[in-house]
């Protein structure tokens, strides 16, 4: 869709003029030299990894479009099955064994020479980026269906009878078309981008779900802490953006020690003790698992009274001067890690676990000589037990109490790659 928009902005003429939409917006003529046929086969030159002389020079891929913020092409790498952006791509517009399709309706090759004039109705000058208004959306849709009708069948990726697949079902591939590539620097910038607005909304919904705060009138003589949005693109191991994440943080540096908080620490374990756990798990012969708590710090209950400002861009119109009173910790608060540790300790001790004497982040449950061990590293928990039943029980309990993500065998922890075999563990 981005690609359609991209081409559209560069080739369609504004009604009654001879300028393209891109010219109106940027004030210079667009270049169409680099345009290629959507879905073409292409070869992506390796420019990132270390490659030996005799190794393959490129991967095969499918051309998808153009990068929104650089001159790179956006391609789907068939080997690694990811969408990536690269400038070192050779695109094969006319694949062998197929007669180039000559039809007025095939949009892409035709576009290189001239623009179809029938599609201009009422397009406003638009940012070439993602935000497409509903009315424009419909014209886009009309356009793309018309194009697809006359596409040669082997050009169509996937089975056309499948219908429209949603974001979730296709996973990474489609997903990367639905995320913003840019990381905004401030809220103002983010509020212009629908993907980022969605991300922020998601964060606030999470707050609502876990009942983080209440809106109250601004109290007198209390230090109200400012809030700030942090925007981060999450990417996978190939460096492609998979998710836009917005996080609301409290500006904890305005907190005053003794008044707003007294003790701060985070539950981290020494690396030695983690290796010790690996060693012990070998000797006692049990498998290790790991889990990751979602938005950890939002789980901790606060003992102190803490007020924060309403988040920028999301101020309640009826009570603009109110502030939020926190019931649970926010990221950035000085006491957030401690609150989380206390909450978890309380929970685990309630479940019959014993806190370690020398290692306060280790929790052990002894059930008739059978051990269940959990080691905490802030939001990562490594655990294992001698009986399968206990492990399952632990997972269930934790999932019931906290929002969890990524529960599975221990593979990657604190930068250590862990491989578990029959009765050995290999770390590197």
């Amino acid at each position: 869709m981005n690609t359609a928009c991209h081409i559209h902005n560069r080739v369609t003429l504004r009604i009654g003029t001879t300028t393209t939409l891109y010219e109106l917006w940027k004030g210079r003529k667009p270049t169409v030299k680099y345009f290629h046929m959507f879905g073409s086969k292409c070869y992506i030159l390796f420019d990132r990894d270390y490659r030996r002389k005799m190794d393959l020079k490129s991967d095969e891929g499918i051309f998808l479009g153009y990068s929104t913020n650089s001159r790179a092409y956006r391609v789907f790498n068939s080997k690694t099955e990811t969408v990536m952006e690269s400038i070192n791509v050779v695109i094969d517009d006319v694949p062998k064994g197929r007669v180039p399709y000559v039809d007025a309706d095939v949009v892409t090759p035709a576009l290189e020479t001239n623009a179809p004039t029938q599609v201009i109705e009422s397009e406003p000058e638009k940012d070439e980026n993602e935000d497409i208004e509903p009315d424009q959306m419909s014209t886009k849709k009309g356009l793309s269906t018309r194009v697809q009708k006359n596409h040669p069948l082997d050009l169509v990726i996937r089975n056309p009878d499948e219908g429209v697949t949603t974001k979730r079902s296709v996973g990474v591939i489609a997903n990367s078309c639905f995320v913003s590539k840019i990381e905004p620097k401030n809220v103002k910038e983010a509020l212009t981008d629908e993907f980022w607005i969605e991300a922020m909304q998601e964060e606030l919904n999470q707050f609502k779900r876990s009942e983080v705060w209440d809106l109250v009138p601004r109290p007198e003589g209390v230090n109200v802490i400012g809030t700030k949005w942090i925007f981060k693109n999450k990417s996978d191991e190939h460096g492609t953006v998979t998710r836009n994440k917005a996080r609301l943080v409290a500006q904890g540096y305005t907190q005053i020690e003794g008044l707003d908080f007294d003790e701060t620490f985070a539950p981290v374990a020494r690396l030695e003790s983690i290796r010790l756990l690996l060693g012990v798990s070998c000797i006692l012969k049990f498998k290790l698992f790991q889990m990751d708590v979602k938005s950890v710090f939002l789980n901790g209950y606060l003992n102190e009274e803490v007020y924060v400002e309403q988040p920028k861009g999301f101020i309640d119109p009826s009570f603009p001067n109110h502030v939020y009173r926190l019931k649970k910790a926010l990221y950035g608060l000085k006491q957030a890690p401690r609150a989380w540790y206390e909450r978890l300790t309380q929970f685990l001790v309630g479940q019959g676990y014993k806190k370690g004497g020398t290692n306060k982040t280790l929790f052990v449950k002894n059930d008739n000589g059978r051990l269940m061990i959990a080691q905490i590293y802030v939001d990562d928990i490594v655990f294992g037990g001698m009986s399968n039943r206990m492990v399952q029980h632990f997972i269930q309990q934790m999932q019931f109490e906290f929002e969890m993500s990524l529960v599975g065998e221990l593979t990657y922890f604190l930068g250590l790659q862990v491989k578990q075999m029959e009765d050995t563990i290999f770390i590197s």
Partner: protein
Amino acid sequence: MKKFGLDNGGHKRTPAAAHLKLTKDESGISIDQSMYKSMIGSLLYLTASRPYIIFDVGVCARYQADPKMSHLTQVKRILKYINSASDYGILYSSYENSKQIGYCDADWAGSADDRKSTYGGCFFLGNNLISWFSKKQNCVSLSTAEAEYIAAGSNCSQLVWMKQMLKEYNVEQDVLTLYCDNLSAINI
């Protein structure tokens, strides 16, 4: 990790030359301190799973305050070594006995600048390597025996810590073994 520019070039079979002595090298050419520091930082991170470079990284890390060309070449050599040994790791396997064993050693007056000694040690549980360290001693020792003695002392504390930790896993240790290399003590 290894994106410090062009270090996908050479490979080295050892992290450092056997009898290399780094000194302050006050007359050497100064180099970019922040780059040096970030290299050291990355290497220190790697020592979490690579015991074999800990001494060399430790030595190089001493010169962060005023890095010179000679130090940078040494750091680059470590990076090259890691490059060739990047798929090495530690293997943990189950083994019948789970005795705790420590090994320690010290060099005497290893630091050419202030004649302080460096000691190190590693600790096994059964045949699994658990922890390791390398540290420059705080005081100047007058003999190898003294240097080794100090090393043995601090290694003991690490062993006792491990014993306490193991108690929490219900693995009891009765005898802790520490091997050290103190010839002069035997001769005395």
